[in-house]
C-alpha cells in the first residue's frame, strides 16, 4: 500500500486509455491489463527484474511458483479451466528453459497461453552472456509463434499480437522474449494503436456448400454412425451443437480423453471413452461403424491403434479447424475445415432427424456383456484399488469437482470411473503426457475457478516431479485437495513391463517420502488411507477442511488398467482383465 502511495505512477492502476510515455516494463503490464489479465504465474530473475519492479503499479496478482515448469503448467491449467489465456513469466536462461515442458504440453493440447521471458540486453545478444539462452530458437517448434522484442515500442504490439495468435484458429502457446534494455527504456504506449491486424481465417478454411450437402447425405443414409467427440468441442464452445446433432439423428457418441466432459457422460447417447484404454463397446462400435463423424479431434495414435486397421468399413467426416490435421492419420471422405461450432450450425439445418434405434440396440447389446466395469470385478477383500478411489470421488463430489490428473494409470482410471458431465471439469495432459502436470495445473485451475472444488489426482511418481508447488498452494492459501494414488511403482511403465517385457520391473519400483509428513512440513493436514472402508470418511474430511488437504491412498501395488489395446494393435485386439468377468462365470447373476 505504501509503495503505491509513494509511487508517481499510481494512476497506472486505472486502465490507460490515451497514449502515455512509459518504460518497457510498464508497457508490458499495461498491455496485459488491457488484455484483461488479472493474474500471472512467474518467478523473478536478473533479466526480468525491471518488469517485476514495475508490477506494484498494476492491478495484477503475481503468483510466485517454486519452479518455472510450474508457472507454465499453472498458466495452462488456468486456461483449461477458464477458457481464458493464461500467462507465465520467467527470467532468461534457466528460467526460460524451465518453461519448456509446460509450453510443449500446451502446444500438444492446443491450449492458449502467453509466456513472457526476460532476455539479456540487446547489446550482448548472441555473446553467451550470463543466463543467456536462445529461447525463441528453443521454443520455435513448440509454440504457435514467438517473438524476440528488443525495443520498448515493440512490446505492446508483440504482446497484443501474441494474445490474438494464442486464441485464434487452433489455439496454442506463444512466447514473447523481451530484452532487459527494452524493459528499461521508455516509449509511447498506446494500447489501441498496438492492436494487431484482424485475425484472418486460414486461407484453407473454407467449408464448401457441396461438401456440407455431401456430409449431410452421408449422415442421413448411415446405418451405423458414431460421433467422435474431441477437445475441439470445448475450444469452439460447440457442446450444444454436438448434442443437437447426436440427439436429432440418434447417433451414439464416443469421446477422446480430452473430449471427456464435452458431451455429458450421463447422456444416454454417450458411450464413453474410446482408444487405448477406452471401453470395449466404444471401440467395437467404431470398428463396426459405417460412418464416423469426427468433431474437433485429430485421430491421435492412442485413439486409432493403427491407421490400417482403424474402422475399416466406415466413411469419415472430419470437422476440424486445422487443415494440416486433415488426412494426417486417417483419410477423410468429407473434410469440413473450419470452426466446429460454425460448421455444425451450417450442417444441422440439413439434418431433419433419423431413427437410429437398431444401431443403438446393437451397441447396447454389446455393452450388456462388457459393461460390467472392472470395479465390480475387483475382489472385495477390503483392499483398496485405485478404481475405488475414482469411483467414490465421483460419487461423493457428485461429479461436480474439477479433477486435475497427472499422467499414467491413475489418469486412465480417472477417465474410466469419474464421469464428467460438464466441460472443463477434467484437466489432464493428453498429447504430451507430462508427468508432474497435476499439482501446478490444479493451482492454475483453482485460481481461475476459486468457487469450484478442485482435486489433484496424481501418482506417487508424477507427484514428486513437481511436489515443490505444495509451498505455492500454502503461500496462496488455496483450497486444493490432493489425492495421491500410491502404489510404489511407476505404475503405467510397470504395466507395460508386465505385459510386454516379461515382468522385468527395471527401475519402476520407487521409494517415496511419507507424503502425509511432507504435507505436514508445509502445514497441510493429511491422512493415509489403506482400507476401502476408510475411503469415504477420508474424502469427506478433506472436503470439510477449509484449505489444502492431502490424502495418500495406498492402493493395490500391481493392478493394471483394463481394457488395453497394445500400441500398434487394432482397436478390437484389446487385452481384457484376466478371468474376472462374472458374466462369463455366472451370467444369470446380472
Amino acid at each position, binding site marked *: 500500500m505504501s509503495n503505491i502511495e509513494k509511487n508517481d505512477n499510481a494512476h497506472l492502476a486505472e486502465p490507460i486509455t490515451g497514449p502515455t510515455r512509459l518504460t518497457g516494463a510498464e508497457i508490458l503490464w499495461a498491455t496485459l491489463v488491457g488484455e484483461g489479465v488479472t493474474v500471472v504465474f512467474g518467478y523473478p530473475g536478473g533479466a526480468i527484474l525491471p518488469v517485476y519492479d514495475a508490477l506494484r503499479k498494476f492491478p495484477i496478482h503475481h503468483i510466485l511458483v517454486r519452479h518455472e515448469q510450474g508457472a507454465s503448467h499453472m498458466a495452462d491449467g488456468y486456461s483449461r479451466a477458464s477458457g481464458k489465456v493464461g500467462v507465465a513469466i520467467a527470467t532468461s536462461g534457466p528460467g526460460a528453459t524451465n518453461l519448456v515442458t509446460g509450453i510443449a504440453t500446451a502446444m500438444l493440447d492446443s491450449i492458449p497461453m502467453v509466456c513472457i521471458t526476460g532476455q539479456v540486453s540487446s547489446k550482448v545478444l548472441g555473446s553467451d552472456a550470463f543466463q543467456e539462452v536462445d529461447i*525463441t*530458437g528453443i521454443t*520455435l*517448434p513448440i509454440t*504457435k*509463434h514467438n517473438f*524476440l522484442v528488443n525495443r520498448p515500442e515493440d512490446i505492446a504490439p508483440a504482446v497484443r499480437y501474441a494474445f490474438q*495468435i494464442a486464441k485464434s484458429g487452433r489455439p496454442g502457446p506463444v512466447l514473447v522474449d523481451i530484452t532487459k534494455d527494452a524493459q528499461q527504456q521508455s516509449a509511447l504506449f498506446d494500447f489501441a494503436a498496438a492492436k494487431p491486424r484482424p485475425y484472418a481465417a*486460414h*486461407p*484453407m478454411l*473454407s467449408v*464448401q456448400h457441396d*461438401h456440407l450437402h455431401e456430409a449431410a447425405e452421408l449422415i442421413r443414409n448411415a446405418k451405423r454412425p458414431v460421433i467422435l467427440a474431441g477437445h475441439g468441442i470445448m475450444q469452439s464452445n460447440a457442446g450444444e451443437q454436438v448434442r443437437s446433432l447426436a440427439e436429432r439423428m440418434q447417433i451414439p457418441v464416443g469421446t477422446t480423453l480430452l473430449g471427456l466432459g464435452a458431451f455429458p457422460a450421463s447422456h444416454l447417447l454417450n458411450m464413453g471413452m474410446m482408444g487405448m484404454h477406452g471401453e470395449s463397446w466404444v471401440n467395437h462400435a467404431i470398428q463396426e461403424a459405417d460412418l464416423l463423424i469426427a468433431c474437433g479431434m485429430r485421430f491421435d495414435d492412442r485413439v486409432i491403434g493403427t491407421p490400417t486397421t482403424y474402422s475399416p468399413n466406415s466413411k469419415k467426416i472430419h470437422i476440424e479447424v*486445422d*487443415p*494440416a490435421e*486433415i*488426412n*494426417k492419420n486417417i*483419410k*477423410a471422405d*468429407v*473434410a*469440413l*475445415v473450419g470452426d466446429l461450432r460454425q460448421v455444425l450450425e451450417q450442417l444441422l439445418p440439413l439434418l431433419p432427424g433419423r431413427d437410429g434405434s437398431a444401431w443403438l440396440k446393437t451397441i447396447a447389446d454389446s455393452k450388456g456383456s462388457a459393461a460390467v466395469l472392472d470395479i465390480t470385478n475387483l475382489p472385495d477383500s477390503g483392499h483398496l484399488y485405485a478404481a475405488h478411489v475414482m469411483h467414490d470421488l465421483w460419487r461423493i463430489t457428485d461429479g461436480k469437482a474439477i479433477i486435475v490428473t497427472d499422467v499414467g494409470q491413475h489418469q486412465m482410471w480417472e477417465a474410466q470411473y469419474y464421469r464428467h458431465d460438464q466441460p472443463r471439469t477434467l484437466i489432464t495432459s493428453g498429447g504430451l503426457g507430462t508427468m508432474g502436470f497435476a499439482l501446478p495445473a490444479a493451482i492454475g485451475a483453482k485460481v481461475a475457478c476459486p468457487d469450484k472444488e478442485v482435486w489433484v489426482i496424481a501418482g506417487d511418481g508424477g507427484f514428486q516431479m513437481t511436489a515443490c508447488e505444495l509451498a505455492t498452494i500454502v503461500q496462496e492459501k488455496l483450497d486444493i485437495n490432493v489425492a495421491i494414488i500410491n502404489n510404489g511403482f511407476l505404475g503405467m511403465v510397470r504395466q507395460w513391463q508386465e505385459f510386454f517385457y516379461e515382468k522385468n520391473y527395471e527401475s519402476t519400483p520407487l521409494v517415496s517420502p511419507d507424503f502425509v509428513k511432507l504435507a505436514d512440513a508445509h502445514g497441510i493436514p493429511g491422512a493415509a488411507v489403506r482400507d476401502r472402508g476408510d475411503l469415504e470418511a477420508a474424502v469427506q474430511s478433506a472436503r470439510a477442511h477449509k484449505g489444502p488437504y492431502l490424502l495418500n491412498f495406498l492402493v493395490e501395488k500391481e493392478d493394471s488398467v483394463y481394457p488395453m489395446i497394445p500400441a500398434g494393435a487394432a482397436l478390437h485386439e484389446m487385452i481384457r482383465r484376466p478371468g474376472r468377468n462374472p458374466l462369463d462365470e455366472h451370467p444369470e447373476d446380472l
Partner: protein
Amino acid sequence: MLHTFVAYVEDKPGVLTRVASLFRRLNINIISLTVGHSERPGISRMTIVANAPDHANAEAGHRIRASLFKLEDVVEVDDIGKAPAVTRELALIKVAATAHTRSHIFELAEVFRARIVDLAPDSLMIEITGVESKIEGLIQVLNETEERVLEVCRSGKMTMRRGAHKSGVLRAMGVGTGEPQPEEPAFEHFADNI
C-alpha cells in the same frame, strides 16, 4: 516424390528458420530453396523444392502446404505440382582450362547456350540458365572432358506459374497438361484435392 512450393513470407529475421524447421520436423529433405524480394514491399518470395520420403502418404503435399500456412509469417503458399509453370535455375561452373584446351569448352558452352563470364590463365567460368536437366547435362559433359570441374554453384529452382493461355498454346509450347488452368489456385477446393 518431389514437391515444389512457392511461398510469400514476411521479410523478417527468423522466417527462413521457421520454414526450414518445418521441413526438418516433418523429416522432409529440402532439395533447393531460393529466397528473394517479391513484387510486394516487405514480402519475400521463396521457391521450395522438397523431397517427401516414399513412406509419406500421397497427401504429403497438402499437409506441407497447410503446415506452411500455419506459420504466422507466411502470407501465401502455392503448391505448383504439375501446373503449367516456368522453372529456371542458374549455375556458375568453374572449369580448369588452359589456352590449349579452352576452345573445346567454348564449343560445349555454345551448344548449351551458356556464357563464359570469366577467363583466367588456368580456369574459366561458365554461366548457364535453364531447367535442371539442361544444367545437369552440361555438368555431365564437362565431367567427361579432360578438364577438371573446379567449382559448381547452383541457385536452386525458381518457379512461376504461367499466365492464362489458351490450351492450344500450351500444347504447342509442349508444357503442362494442356488442360485449362483452374481460375483459382487449388486451395479453393482443398478438401477435393486431399
